[in-house]
């Protein structure tokens, strides 16, 4: 079921085109956004989160159009947003900060608010840090606190901008479990640079470049973009090729078969790199 429709979305910052006539439909489940820096991922998420007005185009989420003030407010009641840099108040305790955000989310009943704050702290594993001031939390804990404020009010639409930054592997695992569970009944849209997160979490992935979607499909489909183009070899290939050394000491090459190269099963990362094409390859080889 489509819950979010994006039609002809455009946004420009001066001479820089951030979103270029983007069309997208998103439904319940977890959708990942991949793309290089400057592709427009954060701009898209901010437009969806109603934090930024697009220059043109139309967004509709759960039947609500944020261009109309009343519907924008109604949409904000149903969404949770974690920006790249939440800018949390350093002198507030974790619980006090969540309480503040809960009031902003119109939870004016004290009992309900306290229960909700306890619930989200438990979801992100910060119950024992409830009274600790934000400035004393580690980077990973602040990221989890940011996620917690997005979860307040059980939003239908969750928009997460690089939510796994700063999380250690154990925290990332907990995060994946949480998002997977939420994705069963909610629309979750997250942007990430971690292709492993996409593979682990997302039923659908959209790859963006220069404000447009260049791929929209399953993670397996993205990996298959590199089918027959991934090779392993014991020695470094010669010539202009994109390759790197993996943890097993083997050289993984993308593109034409190197001498003594054996085919390898492509990963999502391989497919992403093949999709973004020669410009990335040229950049890697030049270095």
């Amino acid at each position, binding site marked *: 079921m489509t819950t979010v429709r994006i039609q002809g979305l455009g946004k420009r910052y001066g001479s820089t085109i951030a979103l270029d006539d983007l069309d997208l439909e998103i439904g319940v489940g977890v959708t990942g956004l991949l793309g290089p820096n400057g592709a427009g991922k954060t701009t898209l998420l901010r437009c969806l*989160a109603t934090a930024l*007005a697009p220059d043109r185009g139309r967004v509709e989420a759960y039947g609500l159009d944020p261009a109309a003030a009343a519907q924008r407010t109604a949409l904000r009641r149903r969404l949770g947003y974690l920006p790249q840099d939440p800018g949390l108040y350093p002198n507030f305790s974790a619980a006090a900060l969540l309480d503040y955000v809960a009031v902003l989310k119109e939870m004016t009943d004290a009992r309900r608010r306290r229960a909700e704050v306890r619930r989200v702290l438990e979801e992100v594993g910060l119950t024992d840090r409830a009274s600790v001031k934000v400035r004393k939390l580690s980077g990973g804990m602040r990221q989890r606190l940011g996620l917690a404020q997005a979860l307040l009010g059980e939003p239908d639409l969750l928009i997460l901008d690089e939510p796994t930054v700063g999380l250690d592997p154990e925290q990332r695992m907990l995060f994946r479990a949480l998002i997977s569970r939420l994705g069963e009944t909610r629309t979750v849209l997250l942007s990430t640079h971690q292709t492993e997160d996409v593979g682990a979490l997302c039923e659908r992935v959209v790859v963006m470049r220069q404000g447009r979607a260049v791929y929209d499909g399953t993670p397996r489909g993205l990996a298959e973009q590199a089918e027959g183009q991934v090779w392993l070899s014991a020695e470094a290939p010669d010539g202009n090729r994109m390759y790197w050394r993996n943890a097993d000491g083997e050289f993984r090459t993308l593109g034409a078969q190197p001498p003594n190269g054996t085919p390898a099963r492509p990963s999502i990362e391989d497919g992403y790199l093949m999709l973004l094409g020669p410009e990335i390859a040229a950049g890697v080889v030049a270095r």
Partner: protein
Amino acid sequence: MSVRWRQTLLLIGPVLRIVPWVPVAAAVLVSALALLPAVADAQAPASQVWGLRIAAVVLGAAASFAMVDPMALLSVTPTPRWLRQWLRVTVALVPAAAVWCCLYAAAASSAAPQRLPLGDLVAEAAVCALAGVVGAAVAARGGHSLTTAVAGPAAQGGLMAATLFLPASYSAWPLPGAAQWETAHDWWWAALVVLVVALVAANGEVWPWRVRRAGAGG
């Protein structure tokens, strides 16, 4: 009680913690020092008037720092932006106004009332202080960075620099009893109205009136 009223009451406490009070405390100190000569020498109305003007500018500069909100994500909650911004304005300006009134009372206690016309001096003080708050509020529509923080004092500096271009006979800073006092304060009251309107507009939603639809020649 409506949701908005309940929210307003619940938000006062957190906003009091969020607003930076160190600049306000520094401003109170500077303002008191500025009035010290006036209190010491009540026969010099010039020092009283200038002390009150300086106090208004400094208190307004300190209050403008309250418009900086590093938690930009708050813009996506259902609470309207105008409510959050006006709460900040009120929490910052009410103490500033109270301090200024106390300073006026101290200066006026030893001076003849006609030397310190309250209404006109209030207009001046309100404009000087609001210029900072409006500057910061306008800048806050574009982000919450260092620029936002200094936009308030910059706006005050710009306003005062503009008045420096006026010739002496049209000075914006006459002393009570000067020939141009009445005319100058007509302009001060007009400026106050303009600033209040600007503050109302600046504290509103950051959303354009109209967004072009897909396919509409965009």
